[in-house]
């Protein structure tokens, strides 16, 4: 039995979705779906997104161009969605620089310079595909990421002040949110038939990316958009029905998240909060361990499970909204989170939980390592490439994302505060690597296996990720407390 009907498999509905009236009905359903799930979006996003996808629905031949136009407009008009303006203003004040009209003008100049520089680099890499091409054309993403990391280190370590310091950090603040979008575009430039720069602009933070605060390109770059674009009215109708189906799922996820907040956490702002079980959020029991006023063990375990549930629901909800926008715009993208509770192995869960983040790490860390190193030993080759992606790539992604924090506390203190995430990423990489090796030659535990074996496998996987969630903090100075909290869950005295 299906909770949400497979709308896209009903031939009459698919045909109806191709008529003028059908398109209008789907757009209204989309607007209602976004409005109902507006908790996952910024205010008024549902009107803007509906307007944007309406244009793309009625002018399908110009879909990619419209996407570029709308995404550039969105970037310029709603730059506060992606640019950390508060950070830049505080920095300007600290450096004794004016914060009146001159700061936005300076930032606009930096944005223009960076995009011009990117366009030139993209065109250069696209043109220079010869065996003797320079290193930057052979490994553009490696150059981009190491270049960004080097500028970040220089900005944090060099004794700079005044306008130069402001300029450097402003450049980092502009490139930071675009880093992995640029990476996908440069990767596409190295392929046989890349999109031109006009179409690439539509994949550099497409307007739906601003639905949530993400640095991960969803659904990857222009190369993927090219492959998943609806080719005819039938494809478009199917993609849009899938978008509506996903929004119905999002309503269920949203309701579950609300129920969790009220009845599990007992959210104080809610009228029914007195009915809640009052389970503390994860941070509270961890701190209470440190101050020797521990919460009871059952509450500590409940807190870990509730933290996993709320994180899973939030990630699922936001991912569904973004993919629904993408599908409604005519791109039949895969979901970001897909039936992860059916996972039988750690590697399978990670693949199904945050698909596009995993894809980023696979694309830019796993395959570059896998195709180059340890070719003599297949098992070690797989394991090393997994560590390169899930541990090293994961750490690089998250550390670079926190550039404003590095500016605030300095490089060394930022690295100290990153220890806990480094531990998290190391255990994650080991877990996925071991899981892959264990299951490499086995057939997947299918639905025909006894229920207890499936339950045991899923329970083990969920427990691994729920417990690992204790250490999922990018900017933390409580590693010791979190470790003690973890040990106490297993009655290990500390």
């Amino acid at each position, binding site marked *: 039995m299906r909770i949400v009907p497979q709308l896209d498999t009903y031939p009459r509905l698919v045909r109806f979705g191709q008529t003028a009236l059908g398109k209008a009905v789907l757009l209204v359903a989309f607007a209602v779906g976004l409005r109902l799930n507006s908790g996952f979006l910024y205010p008024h996003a549902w009107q803007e997104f509906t307007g944007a996808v309406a244009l793309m629905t009625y002018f399908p031949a110009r879909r990619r161009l419209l996407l570029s136009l709308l995404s550039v407009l969105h970037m310029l008009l709603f730059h506060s969605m992606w640019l950390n303006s508060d950070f830049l203003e505080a920095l300007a004040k600290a450096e004794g620089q004016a914060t009146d009209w001159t700061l936005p003008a300076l930032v606009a100049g930096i944005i223009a310079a960076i995009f011009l520089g990117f366009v030139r680099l993209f065109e250069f890499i696209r043109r220079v595909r010869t065996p003797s091409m320079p290193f930057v054309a052979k490994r553009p993403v490696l150059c981009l990421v190491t270049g960004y990391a080097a500028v970040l280190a220089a900005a944090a370590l060099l004794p700079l002040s005044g306008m130069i310091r402001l300029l450097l950090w402003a450049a980092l603040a502009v490139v930071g949110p675009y880093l992995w979008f640029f990476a996908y575009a440069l*990767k596409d430039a190295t392929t046989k038939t890349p999109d031109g720069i006009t179409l690439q602009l539509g994949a550099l933070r497409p307007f739906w990316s601003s639905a949530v605060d993400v640095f991960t390109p969803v659904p990857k770059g222009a*190369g993927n958009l090219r*492959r998943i674009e609806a080719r005819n009215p039938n494809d478009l109708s199917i993609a849009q029905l899938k978008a509506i189906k996903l929004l119905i799922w999002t309503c269920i996820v949203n309701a579950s998240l609300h129920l969790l907040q009220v009845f599990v956490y007992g959210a104080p702002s809610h009228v029914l909060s007195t009915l809640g079980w009052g389970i503390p959020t994860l941070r509270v029991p961890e701190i209470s361990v440190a101050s020797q006023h521990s919460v009871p063990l059952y509450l500590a375990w409940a807190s870990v499970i509730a933290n996993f549930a709320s994180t899973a629901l939030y990630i699922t909800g936001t991912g569904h909204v973004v993919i629904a926008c993408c599908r409604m715009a005519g791109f039949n993208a895969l979901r970001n989170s897909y039936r992860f509770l059916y996972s039988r192995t750690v590697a399978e869960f990670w*693949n199904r939980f945050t698909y596009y983040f995993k894809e980023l790490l696979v694309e830019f860390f796993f*395959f570059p390592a896998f*195709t180059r190193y340890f070719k003599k030993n297949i098992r070690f080759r797989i394991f090393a490439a997994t560590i390169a992606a899930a541990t090293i790539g994961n750490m690089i992604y998250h550390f670079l994302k926190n550039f404003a924090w590095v500016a605030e506390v300095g490089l060394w203190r930022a690295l100290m505060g990153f220890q806990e995430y480094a531990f998290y990423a190391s255990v994650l990489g080991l877990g996925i690597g071991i899981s892959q090796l264990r299951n490499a030659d086995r*057939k*997947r535990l*299918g639905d025909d296996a006894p229920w207890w074996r499936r339950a045991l496998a899923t329970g083990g996987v969920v427990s691994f990720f729920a417990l690992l969630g204790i250490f999922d903090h990018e900017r933390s100075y409580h590693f010791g407390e979190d470790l003690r909290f973890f040990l106490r869950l297993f009655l290990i005295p500390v």
Partner: protein
Amino acid sequence: MNDSLVIREFLQTLLSRKGDQGAFLDNEQLIAGGRLQSIDTLEVVLFLEEKYGIDFAENGFDQNEVGSIDNILALISRR
């Protein structure tokens, strides 16, 4: 057996290990369509390295170059 059949047989085995017994066309994008995952892609890489001597380290690797039978055949003929 020609290359097309060898590749089809290999991909069919890969899909059936995941419980996917469905048919697929030569031009069907199995990765973009979600029928093959990254972990499967690395098996395709190993197969192409071993069977056809393709070295992906040289010119970089794009998952979509191995996403369908047609794409794999094009890759083999290019390298």
